[in-house]
């Protein structure tokens, strides 16, 4: 018990010390010793608040953390260059831990603090969070959420500023057709929209191009074993020309290892969830995998320049291309505030609807005002020689309808 008291006392003392440390700083900035005229001249412009109630500690921190890291770099750059409309940006990221209540509370607090714009979480509480934003009339993005149905479900203030799943599936399908693949086999999981809908979009685009889907199977996310599906594929007669699956890591390498171990050499196409450095540990099994993603460094492209800039600023390579998504989003916010000429939410939403040819790190983005999703080129990467390499980048000619 004595130990407990000692601990409580120590914590209390530490907290008091922190508080005491903070007080003089506040006094210095607001202290009366500064003359009124100087204070008025030096009074900083009111910052523009951009809020991000994301998931920084639970499963979706995998996406939300890189979005935050990219956003922080963009905010620092913009502020160093004088801010937006003469006002600095203030980026506040709050951890909602993928918990509905905590994310809602954090979102509401950010709105109450006067957030002009909200970056949406990729996590489960997104729709609830977006409904709060829409009630307050504040624009909110889908973060790294690629499901195209998100904006429609969230409400008129929601926007998708990244490639949506129907776009990436269409690029996969056009690539497949260009490779001479005539028949495809789909592997989907019905558990979440991402893994359920992507094969449907792929099938629509592949069949539109002239291809034929000859069968499909279902897998379970994080099942750790796909031998049952592999055995079914091995028994297919005739074998398909290509397998399409939106499986994401760590499932993709599990499936590919078991597929290749069964002696099946059919090429596999996948999507952005599979594009991660950790997949390379699977060695030969993942060689030849082609997948769509947001952007990828090559030669001297914008992503390569961004990676170099990010490394210079932070000392580390960006963990994933998602960092560039957060970075682009803040520059989009800058653009729409400048277009709107103010931080009035309604004017910002109008500016977002009219966003055209925004040149970001991840590509050139134009908003489709009817769907509130951007049209942008999708990048294709291929694993070869133990590396993920840039393969191509294009806008699909046919975009499948969203259900």
């Amino acid at each position: 018990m004595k130990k407990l008291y000692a601990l409580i006392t120590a914590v209390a003392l530490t907290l008091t010390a922190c508080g005491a440390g903070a007080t003089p700083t506040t006094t210095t900035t607001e202290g009366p010793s500064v003359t009124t005229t100087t204070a008025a001249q030096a009074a900083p412009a009111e910052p523009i608040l951009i809020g991000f109630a994301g998931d920084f500690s639970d499963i979706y921190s995998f996406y939300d953390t890189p979005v935050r890291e990219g956003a922080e770099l963009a905010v620092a750059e913009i502020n160093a260059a004088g801010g937006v409309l003469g006002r600095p940006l203030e980026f506040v990221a709050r951890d909602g831990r993928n918990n509905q209540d905590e994310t809602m509370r954090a979102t509401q607090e950010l709105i109450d603090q006067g957030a002009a714009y909200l970056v949406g979480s990729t996590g489960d509480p997104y729709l609830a969070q977006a409904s709060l934003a829409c009630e307050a009339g504040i624009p909110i993005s889908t973060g790294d959420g690629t499901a195209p149905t998100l904006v429609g479900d969230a409400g008129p203030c929601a926007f998708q500023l990244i490639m949506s799943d129907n776009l990436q599936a269409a690029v996969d399908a056009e690539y497949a057709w260009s490779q001479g693949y005539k028949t495809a086999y789909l592997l989907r999981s019905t558990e979440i929209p991402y893994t359920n809908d992507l094969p449907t979009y792929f099938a629509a685009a592949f069949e539109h191009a002239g291809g034929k889907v000859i069968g499909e199977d279902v897998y379970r996310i994080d099942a750790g074993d796909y031998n049952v599906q592999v055995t079914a594929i091995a028994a297919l007669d005739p074998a398909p020309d290509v397998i399409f699956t939106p499986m994401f890591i760590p499932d993709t390498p599990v499936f590919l290892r078991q597929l290749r171990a069964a002696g099946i050499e059919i090429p596999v196409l996948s999507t952005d969830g599979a594009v991660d450095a950790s997949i390379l540990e699977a060695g030969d099994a993942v060689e030849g995998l082609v997948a769509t993603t947001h952007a990828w460094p090559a030669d001297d492209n914008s992503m390569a320049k961004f990676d170099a800039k990010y490394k210079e600023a932070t000392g580390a390579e960006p963990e994933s291309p998602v960092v560039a998504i957060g970075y682009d989003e803040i520059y989009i916010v800058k653009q729409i505030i400048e277009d709107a000429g103010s931080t009035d939410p309604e004017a910002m939403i109008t500016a977002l609807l009219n966003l055209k040819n925004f040149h970001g790190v991840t590509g050139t983005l134009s908003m489709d005002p009817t769907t509130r999703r951007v049209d942008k080129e999708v990048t294709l990467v291929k694993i070869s020689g133990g590396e993920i390499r840039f393969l191509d980048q294009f806008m699909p000619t046919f975009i499948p309808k969203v259900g």
Partner: protein
Amino acid sequence: MSLEVLVQQLLNALSLGSIYALLALGLAVVYSVLGLLNFAYGELITINGYIMFVLIGAGVGFWVAALVGIVAAVAASLLIERTAFRPLRGASATTVIFSSFAVSVIIQNLIRNLVSPRPKGIAIPSWMDGVVAVGPFRLPVLSLITVAVALVGGVILTTLLTRSRHGLAMRAAAEDFTTARLMGVRAGRMIIFAFGVSGLLAGIAGFLWVARRGAVTPTMGFTPLLEAFIAVVLGGFGKLSGAVYGGFLLAFIEVALHLPAPLRPFTSALTLVVVVVILFVRPQGLAKAVEGRVA
């Protein structure tokens, strides 16, 4: 469906069942002694995986890392007993279950913050991804290893339980803990022994799980915990043999339900429906039914 495909799928089920059986046995060992489920059980697999990831990253060989990973799972199991279960001896079951949940969340968050929330790949020796062809059948090397390890593990555990004093006491405790204590079995020591065996089984099954996945994630213990839990329920609580039957049966149900194409989207749901139906017919689980028939 051809006979070949059917046999191949049976082999898949056998391999999967081996892992489930090991996992379920580890969960059941603690339940049989304490009458409580250790919901931090899945994290023993996670700890094994991350220890392997860190050691391999530091240049340690794959097999040494695997061995240290298994030892770490045993150590973690004993530590969980000491910190989350022992101080709550005599508390209500709900309290202890929450305590084990808390351990699970703490371990997951520690990994997210100390390592990474992102999946990390572990390079598995390529020969483990090989295939042995026997006639028209292909036997994945990893599946063969899994079945062999489960068999060896099963034999070691059976020997331990039938030949050693601890084992005898453990079986007695599993049958009836109160009576066993009255007969002189020391409760504290028995519980530690159960957690040790549980950690060992989780460690071995965890290694096989990691070898199959080739990657570690902070929540990787959830699926094995869930499968083990269903297998234990299916097998009958408190019966160690039941956990083994439950593990194999669960794998066979999962694979069988995947065979007819129209059922595939519903495999997970239907698996649980079948489990419910089995429990409806045999509420005590499989073990008693099987043993009853033998008697």
